[in-house]
Every structure is written in structure tokens, then in C-alpha cells.
């Protein structure tokens, strides 16, 4: 898995938009992965109050969810998000890093199912919950 996360295809995934918002890998296990990004005023929806836009939180959840699938199947397969549903259970006050822990709970031949929880410091007090499905492209 360590080699997996160092693979060039994965490095490319962490470039582009993931790099732009400063995504970093925190940890991973057999069927889960944790990504985070630090607070950055560039990612605020409204400069006047500094509250994060949801866009970076969705990108974080989308990327963490994809990575959880790689952790579960122990390889990087080309895939695309089929659908993603997010509940914003509370607002995140500006200034704190956001962490997302995604768990891939089922993989079939062509579809992977992932749930994810995002928090701003206390995993027991989340800011968002999500459910997503991905399908494997190509092959």
C-alpha cells in the first residue's frame, strides 16, 4: 500500500486541483483512507467572513473516497464518481484544518460504495457526512 500511494498515477491524482487546495494524506488502512487540508483564506466562499466554501470540502471527500477504494482493492484502477451525496451537519468555523475519513464498505466487479465523515478536529463532532458510489472505467 505504501508503494501504491507512491505510485506515479496516484501522485498525478494528488497534483492538479488536489494540490491547489493543499490536500495531504493523513493515514490509511485496509479499507479506509484519511485526507486533510489546512485552512486557507483562498478557499473561503466569502472573503468578508472567511467561512470555507463547500467546494474544497466536497473535493476533499471525493478524493478521500477514491483513495479508500484504492486502499480496499490494493491497487489503483481507473474510476469515476457516479454519485455523491453530502449532508452538511454543522458549519465549520474558519481557521481549522478539515479531515475526511472515507471507508469503502463494498466493491463489486464494476462499482465501489464509500461512506465518508469530515470533521474539523474532533472526529466525534463531524461537519459533514457523505455517501458516494464510483464505477471502474475501462478494462
Amino acid at each position, binding site marked *: 500500500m505504501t508503494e501504491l500511494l507512491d505510485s506515479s498515477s496516484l501522485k498525478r491524482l494528488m497534483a492538479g*486541483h488536489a494540490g491547489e487546495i493543499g490536500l495531504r494524506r493523513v493515514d490509511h488502512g485496509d479499507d479506509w483512507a484519511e485526507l486533510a487540508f489546512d485552512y486557507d483564506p483562498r478557499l473561503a466562499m*466569502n*472573503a468578508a467572513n472567511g467561512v470555507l466554501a463547500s467546494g474544497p470540502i466536497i473535493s476533499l471527500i471525493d478524493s478521500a473516497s477514491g483513495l479508500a477504494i484504492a486502499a480496499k482493492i490494493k491497487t489503483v484502477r481507473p474510476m469515476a464518481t457516479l454519485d455523491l*451525496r453530502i449532508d452538511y451537519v454543522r458549519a465549520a468555523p474558519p481557521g481549522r484544518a478539515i479531515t475526511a475519513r472515507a471507508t469503502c464498505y463494498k466493491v463489486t466487479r464494476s462499482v465501489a460504495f464509500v461512506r465518508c465523515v469530515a470533521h474539523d478536529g474532533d472526529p466525534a463532532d463531524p461537519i459533514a457526512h457523505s455517501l458516494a458510489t464510483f464505477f471502474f472505467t475501462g478494462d
Partner: protein
Amino acid sequence: MDFDSPYAEVIGAHPNRATGEPILSVSWRPAIEGRPGFIHGGVIAGLLEMSCYEALAHEFRGTGLPKVKPINIAVDYLRGGLMTETHALAQIVRIGKRVANASALCWQDDRSKPIATARMHILIDRQG
């Protein structure tokens, strides 16, 4: 968006009033790339969500937009987002006392071939 939005600037989202509708558009830039050659799914979802706020602000033009909060969003990804101009537009399906229901569409060259759709619930705080 009638306010300074740093995130909108990062992804390059800007109002597009070519048809008179509250469309938001994003031009291709490396900062929005996800898997190589395609727009990041989070950027598409972020754009769809912003288009819901844009449409709500359009509904409230004149009186001004009350304080709003996102409740949830469900995004369907229909096609990969290619390295070209991307647009999003939402319809406000219903505005209640507390909640607005929005339905949004994201497309590139052909509006009849959306690359993603979304449904969103927005909490309206008329006191705030």
C-alpha cells in the same frame, strides 16, 4: 456573486449573463484538474452548489438574499468534465419559509448533454 469570493477565484468561476439566466461559468485551468485530463469531481460539485446560491440570489433580487446555509447536496456525475469551458445553472424548484429546493445542471459544449446534475436543499434564515 455580488461579493468577493476567494474560492470562486481559485476555480475561476464567474457569472455569465449571456442568456439573462444566472449561469456560472468556469474556464479550463490546471488548478481544477482531477484525474488527468478531466475536471475534479469536487470542482463540478462546488460549481453546481454555487449555481444554486446564484439562482436563489436571482429569485431574491430586489429584496436581497437572506442568510442561507447548505443542508445537503446530491450530485450525479453523467460524463467526464473535459478540458474546456464549463457552465452551471440551477432552477429554484420551491422556496418555503425555511427551506429552498434547487435543481442544478452542469454542461460544457452542449446544454442538452449535461455532465452532472444536482439537487440541493438550502436553509433560509429570514431572521439572520
